[in-house]
């Protein structure tokens, strides 16, 4: 339900002028989000504990999607 409610929140925020990127692990449940970034790290969607390099990679991609996507988008990492 986490990913489903995240998609719900994202669509409502987007309809109210707030751009969104959902960063999660369950692709099937993110396909309704306006912008989604799918990562492989179960229970740690940004990356494993202490792995700042991976955290930066994930967040850099998320920020890039916010800055550049011109239509609803799902990106896998």
């Amino acid at each position: 339900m986490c990913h489903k409610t995240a998609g719900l929140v994202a669509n409502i925020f987007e309809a109210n002028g707030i751009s969104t990127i959902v960063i999660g692990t369950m692709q099937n449940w993110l396909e309704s989000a306006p912008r989604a970034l799918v990562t492989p790290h179960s229970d740690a969607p940004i990356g494993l504990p202490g792995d700042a390099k991976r955290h930066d990679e994930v967040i850099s991609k998320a920020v890039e999607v916010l800055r550049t996507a011109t239509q609803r988008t799902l990106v896998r990492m």
Partner: protein
Amino acid sequence: MIRNEYRERWARWIPSALNALAEEPPDFPAVMPAFPLPDIDRTAFTGPRSDLRVALVSSSGAYDARTQAPFASRSIVGDASHRSFDSSLPAEHIAFAHEHYDRSAARRDAECVLPREALRRAGVTLTPHIVSWSGYLLDWPTFLEATVPQMLARVRADGANAAAIVPI
């Protein structure tokens, strides 16, 4: 008073789901196919943003353990409320109330689910509050009617033009 068609559909569904949800673990496959979904706009898209002011929003059940009650994560329908707390709150004061994921990674390093430092390193402005809910949540009518508008108001008051939403 105004009737809520979605709440009425949900209220017809929940009695049929309670026994399966009370099992340990809950038998989601038995009941979720019939879970009623709300009719919301799933086409809105704001377009690219350059000057990002980002609110960090998460379904991880995060809360300020010094001043806030945990989410009622053992409730059979979850907890439809939300918390907001200072984005600069030291990690040792952040706790997670959510029964449906392994919280050990988040407890070792909150950046796994609340990437505050990574967002700052990426050069975006992080808004003053983190907003969270506990993602095992079946009371969608209350979430939609009361909680999401409150979260949206918090994010707007903080001057956000974007949100990084991290579900678990």
